[in-house]
């Protein structure tokens, strides 16, 4: 046991006390911080889109409305209103940062307000020529869109109301296209109301129902609902599990490959048995992973506290995170060790890692369906299939409708059994593979080793 601990301590110190580890640890939150602050600022300072929109309007009623609906003032007002709707469900601290009027948040999120010039075309304009105008790249204002209003778009015909056709050149920003859609909708509705001699202001006030903050009621408490939290929380836990497992797993792979390629492995084997080496390496890198996990969990908790959202999740999830982390770490870590023991260098390791990485990534492919339908047959089945059961079950547990406890503990029991099985196989391959040089073994050979050893 003493030798196992010595190997574990060396693994831990050799990994943790390096610039690469410290930088790697800081990288994820740094990217997050940059994403949260710098990107919106860059978007807000993005180059303002300016250009012409051609309108063929046989009704003669939509063009004017469209010029008004796509004016900078109206676009700003629409964006501010939409952002305010989103902010209603955000925590108070987020609203304070974003600004309660929504205007500042809209500028951050959506960038500069575009400046459109509406160019009216004759009702009988040649559409072939007009479409060619879109791709005419002569100097001058950009040609952003061609809109052809249907003749029955304002006054209903026998088949009801008509719509419009929208033509755009390649590479038009999706936000510009979105603004055009919204402006067109507003303009056509406005034209129809006028055609019916109705009062626009009265209709607007009739159809307007302000969105309010919902309140989440629990058995013991009630609290403000935070939009998106229930969807993001499972993902956050799965990311934590992934980071934890990959931090130690990747280090296990590289340290084993390094020990083998530098031929230090046999010197180690003169002092410790292969099993002591395997156990020591696994424990040492487990400590590394736990350190990384604790750092990120601590950071996440600090963020929740600072945004007054700490009470929104069940702290027991952290206990289950630890349990599922240990299961996932030992299964994936043992696989990584196995790969590291049978290859000669990292290049060979990368090709052998492909199937393991695919296994690890599987739950990410189904993150959305599992989060949305955590108790579907599909979600239930794959939460019992190792090694993806750990990721899947954690996604389900962090969702808004957690699975029954018996499923959780069955998944844990299956996970523990898989740890025993994988460690047993890994130990056998590890013992032989460590002293193997030359062509790495194929899967069939490794199975033969497991049977023979």
């Amino acid at each position, binding site marked *: 046991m003493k030798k196992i601990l010595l190997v574990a301590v*060396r693994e831990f110190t*050799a990994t943790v006390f390096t610039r690469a580890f410290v930088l790697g640890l800081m990288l994820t939150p740094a990217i997050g911080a940059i994403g949260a602050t710098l990107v919106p600022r860059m978007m807000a300072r993005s180059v303002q889109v300016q250009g012409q929109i051609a309108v063929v309007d046989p009704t003669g009623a939509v063009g004017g409305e469209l010029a008004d609906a796509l004016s900078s003032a109206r676009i700003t007002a629409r964006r501010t209103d939409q952002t305010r709707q989103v902010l209603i469900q955000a925590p108070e601290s987020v609203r304070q940062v974003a600004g309660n009027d929504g205007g500042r948040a809209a500028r951050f999120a959506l960038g500069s307000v575009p400046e459109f010039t509406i160019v009216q075309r004759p009702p009988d304009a040649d559409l072939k020529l007009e479409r060619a105008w879109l791709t005419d790249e002569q100097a001058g204002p950009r040609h952003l869109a061609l809109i052809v209003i249907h003749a029955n778009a304002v006054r209903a015909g026998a088949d009801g109301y008509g719509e419009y056709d929208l033509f755009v050149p390649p590479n038009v920003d999706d936000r510009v296209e979105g603004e055009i859609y919204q402006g067109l909708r507003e303009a056509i509705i406005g034209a129809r109301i006028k055609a019916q001699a109705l009062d626009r202001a009265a209709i607007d006030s009739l159809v307007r129902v302000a969105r309010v903050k919902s309140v989440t009621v629990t058995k013991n408490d009630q609290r403000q609902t935070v939009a998106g939290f229930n969807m993001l929380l499972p993902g956050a836990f799965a990311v934590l599990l992934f980071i934890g497992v990959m931090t130690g797993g990747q280090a296990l792979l590289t340290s084993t490959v390094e020990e083998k390629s*530098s031929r*230090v492995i046999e010197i180690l084997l*003169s002092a410790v048995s292969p099993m002591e080496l395997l156990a020591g390496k696994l424990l040492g890198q487990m400590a590394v992973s736990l350190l990384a996990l604790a750092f990120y969990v601590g950071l996440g908790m600090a963020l929740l506290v600072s945004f007054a959202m700490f009470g929104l999740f069940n702290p027991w999830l952290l206990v289950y995170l630890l349990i599922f982390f240990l299961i996932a770490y030992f299964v994936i870590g043992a696989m990584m060790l196995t790969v590291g023991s049978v290859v000669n260098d990292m290049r060979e390791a990368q090709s052998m890692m492909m199937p393991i990485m695919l296994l690890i990534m599987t739950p990410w492919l189904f993150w959305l369906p599992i989060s949305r339908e955590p108790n579907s047959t599909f979600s239930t089945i794959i939460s019992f299939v190792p090694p993806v059961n750990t990721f899947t079950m954690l996604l389900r547990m962090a969702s808004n409708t957690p699975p029954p406890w018996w499923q959780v503990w069955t998944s844990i029991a299956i996970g523990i059994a898989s740890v025993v099985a994988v460690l047993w196989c890994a130990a056998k391959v590890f013992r032989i593979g460590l*002293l*193997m*040089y030359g062509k790495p073994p194929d899967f069939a050979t490794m199975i033969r080793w497991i049977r023979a050893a």
Partner: protein
Amino acid sequence: MSAAVLLSGVTKTFGATRAVDHLDLVVPRGAVYGFIGPNGAGKTTTIRMMMSIIFPDAGTLSVLGHASALDAKDRIGYLPEERGVYRKMRVGAFLTYLGRLKGISEGELPGRIRRGLERVGLGDCEGKRCEELSKGMQQKVQFLAAIMHEPDLLILDEPFSGLDPVSARTLRLLVHEEHQRGATILFSTHVMPHAEELCDHVVMMHRGKKVLDDPLSTIRRQYDPRAIRFEPLDRDADLSPLAALPEVERVSQADGGCEILLVNGTNPASAIPRLASAVPAGRIEIARPRLEDIFIRIVTGGSAAADTEVLRAQLHAGAEPKAVPV
């Protein structure tokens, strides 16, 4: 007292290759055993089985009285053929790590490391990274790691491969010192002169089988006790009086003199004064047969010259890392 190493009927097969074939071996405590043979003879596989790094398919073994070296690892020093260091680790830290794994207490380690490094001429290298050392210096560090816990049994697999003559000499002196301390030494080599210089007992392996297991002195006596190397005082002297002596069976020319083969049964001690009186001698000595020649003679049984040359080439080939076929 039990033998330091005891092997009985040990066999190891990798796929279709029988690397070690029913090997019996007894290494007494305090001996210096040379384990010789060309690459692929089964030396490293045998040593790895002794170290319980791999396990035999058949047969039994005992190391320092234990059925497995795992139970006596702290009393064994091992320098493997394929050896290296943690490149980024400092020399002191590397030795500390291996010393702790070998059971040296934390308090004793700094002193032992310092003294050990000074002993191998690397007193100023404790704080250097291993990658900053030359290959020869790294080998000295590895050797130090194998002996600093003062093992009862020191197993060295091709310890001199890749070393320059000066470093090889330093290592030979250290091996000698370890033997003087009381350690049993077992080392493998395919370089026969090293075995001749260090060993008091030789085990020869060829294609997994033991072909010779005798004290060095016995081997020399047994394989050519009748050859005398003779250099006349006068380089131009007539050597025909030597061939005329009744004790002499044959005289053959050699560089700077001749090699004399005595008649079977002749005592060299009585023949040498008669040779010297027949032709004044500048130098006269019993010609010691080289292990390489003995090995080749045993393996080929005196067969075709082509086989002899192939074997000689194998013995002279470098000890390159090789795969373990499975």
